[in-house]
């Protein structure tokens, strides 16, 4: 179902007219209200009046996470605090967190976009939605919450963690939709197996998963184990939170970008030169309508491309493929670019191997070593050494075929790799220590 038929299926020419008007207004407002943006634009020799067509956006400077940090906490807000009604922040794993603010109208827009997102996943007002995204400073929990409420769903604001209770509530309340990170969905599936709960006995029919990169094989794993459809969504707090792009149930192929509110660009991941539609590079967003915290050409560090072909679902927005890598997740191992999701894709493609893994990168002298820890399930366990060694070799061979690098495969006991209750930690890089 399409939540906002008029805006989500608008012919492209009309959409582009609206995008340009909104872009011009946004740039003018940012220039007028945020000294930091004004200074950067002045330095780049560009003024709001220079934006005459959409492609003129390329004249504007990029905004990076570093810019947000330098303006910590409220330096890039465009409205006085009396108009701010909500503040979120991303956890700062390195340095200060990034802080974002919302006006009442921003929250209304966010709820609208999450309603579109959930509708695209086939969720309706008749659904009982278990929201296992973390509530708090993280945008996932509340973002999904208000979107589901706005759609008219019965929302269970359970947040992440306490997996046994999650399952109990699914059984007792008849949950039909699960919202969580994909790694947490797998944790739930494992716990169900431990408790002897048959997923087919539940009313659960669809999961809406985001907040971390995940592979197609992980999607199949989740779909098979939980007996649901797994839908990918995309968002980041700097842009608005979840609700920036969403897959449709019809295709499950590419996420529709909410282009009437966010203007996407793809730039070369090293030179930052604009790339043509269809080429892969770093995803850059400019918010077109946000009030409190607009961003101009924000570099997301996510790797994507734009898919211009019109989708069978009727939405006219460009799609982007599942984000399976971020420029800062990218490991360079002996000169080869490796994304954790590529290794995930391999591991989940090897029959019988548990979908839990961890990648440990170390350096010996000048040589990078990569170790992949894989859990030994009862299914693949054997009383014979050679069978387990063959399993290691199969995983190793498949990774080598795909990436051209030889990893050390370590078989570990079940449940020794930490289970995710939110974003999974896939890579331990010991090279920096």
């Amino acid at each position: 179902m399409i939540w906002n038929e008029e805006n989500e299926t608008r012919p492209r020419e009309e959409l582009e007219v609206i995008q340009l008007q909104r872009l011009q207004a946004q740039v003018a407002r940012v220039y007028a209200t945020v000294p930091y943006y004004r200074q950067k634009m002045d330095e780049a020799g560009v003024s709001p009046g220079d934006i005459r067509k959409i492609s003129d956006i390329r004249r504007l400077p990029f905004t990076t996470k570093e810019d947000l940090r330098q303006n910590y906490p409220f330096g890039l807000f465009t409205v006085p605090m009396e108009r701010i009604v909500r503040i979120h922040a991303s956890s700062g794993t390195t340095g200060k967190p990034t802080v974002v603010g919302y006006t009442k109208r921003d929250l209304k827009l966010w709820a609208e976009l999450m309603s579109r997102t959930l509708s695209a996943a086939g969720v309706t007002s008749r659904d009982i939605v278990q929201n296992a995204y973390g509530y708090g400073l993280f945008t996932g929990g509340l973002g999904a919450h208000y979107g589901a409420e706005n759609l008219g769903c019965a929302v269970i604001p359970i947040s992440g963690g306490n997996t046994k209770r999650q399952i109990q509530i699914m059984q007792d309340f008849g949950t039909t939709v699960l919202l969580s990170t994909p790694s947490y969905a797998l944790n739930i599936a494992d716990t169900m197996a431990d408790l002897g709960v048959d997923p087919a006995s539940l009313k659960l029919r669809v999961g809406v998963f985001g907040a971390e990169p995940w592979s197609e094989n992980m999607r199949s794993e989740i779909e098979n184990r939980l007996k649901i459809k797994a839908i990918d969504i995309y968002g980041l707090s700097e842009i608005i939170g979840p609700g920036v792009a969403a897959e449709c149930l019809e295709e499950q192929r590419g996420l529709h970008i909410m282009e009437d509110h966010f203007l996407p660009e793809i730039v070369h991941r090293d030179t930052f030169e604009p790339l043509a539609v269809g080429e892969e590079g770093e995803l850059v967003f400019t918010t077109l309508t946000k009030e409190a915290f607009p961003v101009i050409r924000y570099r997301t560090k996510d790797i994507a491309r734009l898919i211009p072909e019109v989708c069978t679902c009727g939405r006219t927005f460009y799609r982007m493929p599942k984000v399976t890598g971020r420029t800062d997740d990218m490991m360079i191992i002996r000169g080869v670019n490796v994304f954790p999701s590529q290794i995930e894709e391999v591991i989940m493609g090897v029959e019988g191997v548990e979908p839990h893994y961890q990648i440990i990168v170390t350096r010996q002298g000048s040589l990078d070593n990569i170790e992949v820890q894989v859990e030994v399930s009862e299914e693949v366990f054997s009383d014979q050494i050679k069978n387990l060694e063959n399993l290691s070799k199969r995983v190793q061979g498949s990774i080598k075929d795909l990436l051209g690098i030889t990893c050390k495969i370590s078989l570990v006991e079940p449940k020794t790799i930490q289970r995710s209750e939110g974003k999974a930690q896939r890579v331990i890089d010991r090279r920096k220590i």
Partner: protein
Amino acid sequence: MQVRQIAIFLENRSGRLADITHTLAKNAINIRALSLADTADFGILRMVVSDTDRAAKALKEDGFTVGITEVTAVEVPDKPGSLDAILQVVNQSRLNVEYMYAFTKQSGETGLLLFRFDNPKTACRAFAEAGFKLLSDEEVHQL
């Protein structure tokens, strides 16, 4: 005729073997025979115990990866040359031994050899023809 053994996956971490024996002790399970095979990266512990099913359940509950598999148990007199006589049969019948382990019974008169063959049926036939006594699951577990 086959005997059930349990096999347990062991990560190379100190104390894991003691964790296994602790679980068995807690559940009053006797170990009849055991063998530990290890590589640089992991190990496999194989055991014949007094109560296979209960041992497997208890170990699983304590988080171990456990498998129940079958081995061939051959009784031999506890005297020099016994193992040689058996291995001659193995050789002549071209049996492929995946692994084996042995233990001596309390009486001290006979020993027991536990074999994992890739083709246990052929092995049983060869041993029977050569006049060796094969023990059943009950016989071994009642030792």
